[in-house]
């Protein structure tokens, strides 16, 4: 088959959406690398421009998906037989995540103005290059329709995130990044091993193809190697998403890195990994294969329960805001993994997990932005140092409160609705332990955040001179507030807060979008 | 017959890996890691994965050992465990 002989209609921009999604930030990064070292001022506009392009493209893709169905893109035109080339795929499962990534990236880029280097602004272009490359990786992961391509892009995102985490000037940050490198490499290797095993049994790397083979060839689907492939892929992704026993790298990595890196990584990395897990479950192995034996499902849900409880309890023990938020991420990952594995008949758990990916991205971004602002403007890193800061920075306080309420799960915010769907799935599936864990974690969140509110709201002493009170060299010192334009932090924060509420109000529409792809799954209810 | 190669190379590979992990002197460890690269390259070549073997040859011989030595040079030479 010679692909270039096929008569194509005049190609519209619309057909090229998946490619543009990864190419725009890639070109942005390269241009910054070429020209940014000379003139640092052009870095931010280029970043913003390329991210805005991706935002537009993501929205256009969403429109396309919901109007005309999934987008399939075959790189290099290698379409037939399926699997020789690389297949990019956008459907309702991932298009919302694409929009979320684009939005988060745009918002955090504002926050990162003048915040990156602290001491060494010379590294500004490198920061933005890594930033854009991370976006490339995340977009690429999300649209990948090929198991190996997914691995390559996981590597892109991991390597850039190592760099972003270690960019601060603190030793602890570098050490945390090193831990992350070790764990991340192990995770990526596990994933690769799994893909290798899968390839040996199926002879293809294309997700659609693998799924076809596994559903039509029962002897292959039943083979040990495929099960082990699944196990390794799963464990690899779990390491990447910091699922419970494998979360060790996350708290330090996200709390000792520069604020703007944390704001970009915390909302996106783990969520995208969760998406990868769901994609692997839904599109590569197929849910009926994954849930064939209930024992595994029960085991994973129990692990998720432990993750939720442990994350919440460990969060209670923290004194630093960011660390606390990091442990909350661990708990939230437990929500999503548990939800995805509930195996209830209506797939409400999976729906909830997918919705929670979006919701949690927004909530985490909101809280990390607020924590970043507190750290930057007031040097407040420990919870006790927040005293009286709600009065000093009322808008930041508004954003923080909205994020916290969403985390607790107060109704108009998205956090409530994601929990609603997850609990619904839990009840349907009869996993009461999961329901109890969710509620317990909400309770602990309430305790945690109201403790912070109390300190920040009632403390009379305005925070000053907190910055020096650390034993180690601080990752970032408080700059005189005149140096940072306040809006760069507050604007993205308030937008995020608004998104949290909008996500909650329009949750029905969003869930309807998410369920488009789940409805298409072959008659799941009868098999489970 | 080429199977014999397999066995010998794999055994050597294990030996090289264990030695490079157990040696306390990091300079030696990084050089022994070079041997690991050689053997892997041989393994690929012997299995017919020539492109991979070539990559391993160029990286293993040209770059990786030097980078490791450069790193050891800027840190401690003795391993602590």
């Amino acid at each position, binding site marked *: 088959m010679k692909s270039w002989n096929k008569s194509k209609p005049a190609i519209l921009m619309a057909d090229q959406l998946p490619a543009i999604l990864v190419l725009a930030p890639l070109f942005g990064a390269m241009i910054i690398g070429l020209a940014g070292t000379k003139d640092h001022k052009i870095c931010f506009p280029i970043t913003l421009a390329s991210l805005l392009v991706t935002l537009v493209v993501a929205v256009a893709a969403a429109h396309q998906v919901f109007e005309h169905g999934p987008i399939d893109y075959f790189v290099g035109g290698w379409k037939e037989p399926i699997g020789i080339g690389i297949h990019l795929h956008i459907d309702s499962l991932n298009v919302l995540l694409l929009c979320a990534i684009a939005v988060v990236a745009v918002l955090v880029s504002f926050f990162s103005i003048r915040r990156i280097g602290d001491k060494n602004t010379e590294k500004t272009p490198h920061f933005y290059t890594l930033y854009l490359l991370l976006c490339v990786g995340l977009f690429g992961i999300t649209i990948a329709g090929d198991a190996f391509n997914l691995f390559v892009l996981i590597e892109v995102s991991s390597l850039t995130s190592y760099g972003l985490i270690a960019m601060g000037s603190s030793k602890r940050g570098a050490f945390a990044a090193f831990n992350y490198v070790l764990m991340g490499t192990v995770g990526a290797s596990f994933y690769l091993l799994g893909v290798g095993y899968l390839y040996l049994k199926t002879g293809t790397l294309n997700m659609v193809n693998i799924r076809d083979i596994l559903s039509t060839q029962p002897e292959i689907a039943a083979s040990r190697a495929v099960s082990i492939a699944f196990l390794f892929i799963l464990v690899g992704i779990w390491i990447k998403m910091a699922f419970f026993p494998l979360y060790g790298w996350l708290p330090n990595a996200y709390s000792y890195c520069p604020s703007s890196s944390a704001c970009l990584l915390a909302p996106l990395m783990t969520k995208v990994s969760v998406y990868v897990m769901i994609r692997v479950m839904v599109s590569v192995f197929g849910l009926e294969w994954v849930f064939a034996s209930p024992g595994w499902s029960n085991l994973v849900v129990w692990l998720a329960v432990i993750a939720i409880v442990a994350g919440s309890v460990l969060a209670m023990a923290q004194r630093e805001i960011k660390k606390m938020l990091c442990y909350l991420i661990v708990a939230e990952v437990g929500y999503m993994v548990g939800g995805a594995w509930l195996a209830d008949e209506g797939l409400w758990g999976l729906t909830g997990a997918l919705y929670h990916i979006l919701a949690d991205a927004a909530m985490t971004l909101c809280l990390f932005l607020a924590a970043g602002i507190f750290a930057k403007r007031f040097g407040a890193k420990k919870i006790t140092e927040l005293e009286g800061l709600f009065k000093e920075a009322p808008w930041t306080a508004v954003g923080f409160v909205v994020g916290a309420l969403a985390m*607790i*799960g*107060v*109704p108009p915010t998205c956090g409530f*609705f994601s929990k*609603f*769907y997850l*609990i*619904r799935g839990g*009840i*349907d599936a009869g996993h009461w332990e999961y*329901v109890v864990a969710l*509620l*317990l974690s*909400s*309770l602990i969140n*309430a*305790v945690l955040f*109201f*403790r912070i509110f*109390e300190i920040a709201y*009632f403390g009379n002493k305005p925070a000053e001179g907190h910055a020096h009170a650390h034993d180690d060299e601080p990752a970032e010192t408080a700059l005189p507030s005149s140096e940072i334009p306040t809006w760069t932090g507050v604007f993205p924060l308030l937008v995020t807060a608004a998104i949290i509420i909008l996500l909650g*109000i*329009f*949750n*029905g*529409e*969003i*869930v309807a979008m998410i369920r488009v792809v789940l409805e298409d799954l072959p008659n799941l209810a009868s098999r489970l | 017959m080429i199977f014999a190669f397999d066995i010998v190379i794999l055994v050597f590979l294990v030996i090289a890996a264990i030695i490079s992990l157990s040696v306390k002197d990091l300079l030696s460890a990084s050089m022994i890691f070079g041997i690991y690269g050689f053997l892997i390259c041989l393994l690929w070549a012997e299995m017919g994965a020539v492109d991979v073997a070539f990559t391993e040859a160029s990286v293993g011989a040209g770059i990786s050992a030097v980078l490791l030595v450069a790193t050891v040079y800027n840190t401690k030479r003795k391993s602590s465990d």
Partner: protein
Amino acid sequence: MENSVSSLLPVWACLASLLAVPLIVLFRKEIFLRELTTFVAGFVKLGLVVAMVPIILDGKVITTTLVAGVSGINVPIVFRVDGLGMIFAIVASFLWILTSLYAVGYMRGLKEHSQTRFFAFFALSLSATLGVAFAGNLLTLYLFYEMLSLSTYPLVTHHQDREARGGGRTYLSYLLGTSIAFAIPAILFTYLQSGGDLSFAGPAILAGSDMGYLTGAVLLMAFVFGFSKAGLMPFHSWLPGAMVAPTPVSALLHAVAVVKVGVFCVIRVVTGVFGLDLLGKLGANLVLCWVAAFTVILSSLIALSQDNLKRRLAFSTIGQLSYIVLGVALLHEMSVKGSVLHIAAHAVSKITLFFCAGAIFVATGKKYISQMAGLGKRMPFTMGAFFLGSLGVIGLPPSIGLISKFHLVVGAADAGQIALMVVFLISTFLNALYFLPISYQAFFPAKDAPGELAATQFSWSEIKEAPPACVIPLCITATLTIGLFFAPTLFLDLADLFVSSVK
């Protein structure tokens, strides 16, 4: 099957105080305008509520849909006013005006800080209260319930000192904690069980569903403990803790709004979610009955041992709330009616008592009962009102308390629960035991009492009545306690309407 009228009145009634919030904040420098706003909003609100009374008495139900269906859940946010909601709304909005008057006096008298915040959140919590009163389904009820918890938190922690923060912490952790841990799952379970219907209109939500005794009992207790504002016993300790709040807050919120919202929710759950038939069939109500009975007795005993007046009042409130819960749990027509009436009766009399406690604090700075001997001669109006309020709470004639208690006791007897009837009677005796001695000592102090008082720093002779803004409201409520005994028609009619609708 029921006459429903669509009207925006409940929405405006709810909004009246909500719209006052920005105005209050706006006028934070103009104290007079600020307080005027509060009063105007209060009267507007009362007017709107009263305007609905004829419609309700006509046997109709007012329904307003605010949001057609919350996205994703497909449950509308609906206001639905029936007899029960009406009683509660009247009581709350009327007492708000009095409390505002009282609060002005109290706050000025003590020169409190952050008064703007105080009045703003006060208005906000009233909106939430009316929202609960008018809630047409479980979701709406829950939303306003949580809104009330959050909007009263700044009021509870008004003093901002260590004690206030501790109290606030207990307050929020109990209220939010139980609602997250018990109420949400219970609501979700109901939602799934009923196939997405949470409305109070028509027959009870779960009336048709088949569930076992255990499921029913667990679900009922999850609801009751989830709405822990009702103060049932293992989850009651937020109430004494919240007494660190300024007295107007304690008065309105912890005698009327917050705690009554709790029992209101319990009544809604028993009548609207389960339905009397289903519960009677399952027999699950007995669990609730005994928990409530236990709470009644134990809280009365604890109240006896308290020396701090406000704490004694708080434990008394816990007991009285359990009367209401117990009445509903008996499932008898008479006792349910008694419960509904007791919402009004207890509100009027207990707020009098709280007003008195506050007035005493404003005038003398005293908090402890043992220091109040002989106070009746210095503060005759206050202590007189206190006596009348005590009568109302104990349920002695001539007070509205007698009517509600009569219904409760007769209902218990009719339902065949003699043991529970005895509980009512014992508790009434205990009530008398911990309230009447206060009044008695105030007017007829023992001989050695003044000596003890002399040890305090205040000069005994300087004590006068509290400022008129404090005294007038408490006189009005005391009068009401007695007056309603003679003219209870309105409340009786509304309660009848409600009882007949759930029967």
